[in-house]
């Protein structure tokens, strides 16, 4: 076992060529589940898990050296907080609009029907939930990889 065990790509030629189809499909499907969560089974949590799976797969298959897109750990932590903040900020927007906390009827957006306002509010909090879930999963994966690499280094020091 050498250093940087997980930073090496473990994809062969099959994974390298097939992930170009799998990853975009996973990401697009995640966004579909997010935006269609009101009309079909799905929603923020599931969409976040799917988007995170897309990025985790890229990281695992391509490795840390030449991966196409990746979210580093510290940025992921910040983005998870931002996702939670989007949710709470939706509640504050309704407060400023004159209603109660998270009462979407009072969102300060000009719309005709109350139902549309509610749908917009639901979409906003689903986006917040999605960002939070996705970034938390990426974050945990990044921490685990870093920890494994560090443990390997320590073994090499002592032997």
């Amino acid at each position, binding site marked *: 076992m050498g250093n940087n065990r997980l930073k090496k790509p473990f994809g062969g030629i099959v994974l390298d060529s097939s992930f170009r189809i799998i990853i975009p499909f996973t990401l697009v499907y995640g966004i579909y589940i997010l935006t269609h969560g009101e009309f079909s089974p799905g929603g923020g949590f599931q969409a976040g898990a799917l988007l995170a799976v897309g990025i985790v797969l890229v990281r695992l298959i391509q490795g840390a050296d030449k991966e196409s897109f990746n979210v580093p750990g510290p940025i992921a932590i910040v983005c998870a907080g931002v996702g939670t903040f989007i949710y709470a900020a939706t509640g504050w927007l309704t407060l400023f609009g004159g209603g109660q906390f998270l009462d979407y009827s009072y969102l300060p957006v000009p719309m005709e029907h109350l*139902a549309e306002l*509610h*749908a917009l*509010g639901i979409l906003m909090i689903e986006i917040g939930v999605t960002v939070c879930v996705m970034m938390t999963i990426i974050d*945990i994966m990044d921490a685990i990889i*870093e920890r494994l690499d560090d443990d390997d280094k320590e073994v090499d020091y002592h032997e």
Partner: protein
Amino acid sequence: MTVITVLFCACTVFLPPIGDPNSAPNQHVTPYYIENSAEDTGSPNIVTGTLADYRGFDTLWETSVMFVSGLTACLILMANTEEGKSVLKGRKNKKGGENRGQ
């Protein structure tokens, strides 16, 4: 502690059976949600309407709990990685004879 646990477990005997149409929540809240969810929340999905609109406050803290737990897991995982920064590392190195931690 054991007594409290046994008492809590014994209390489940008095709960209404799952799916009982005569239980209290199924008499008042559930019919209201089923009848008014589509107009109130603008979403044809009752589950989403309940989760994100009627019970939005609950979901807010659900998200916060997930964020905080993920943050905690990351802190625990990364606590020992940086050289000589954490208590655990200092203890391990003392055992090994060198003290990089201080």
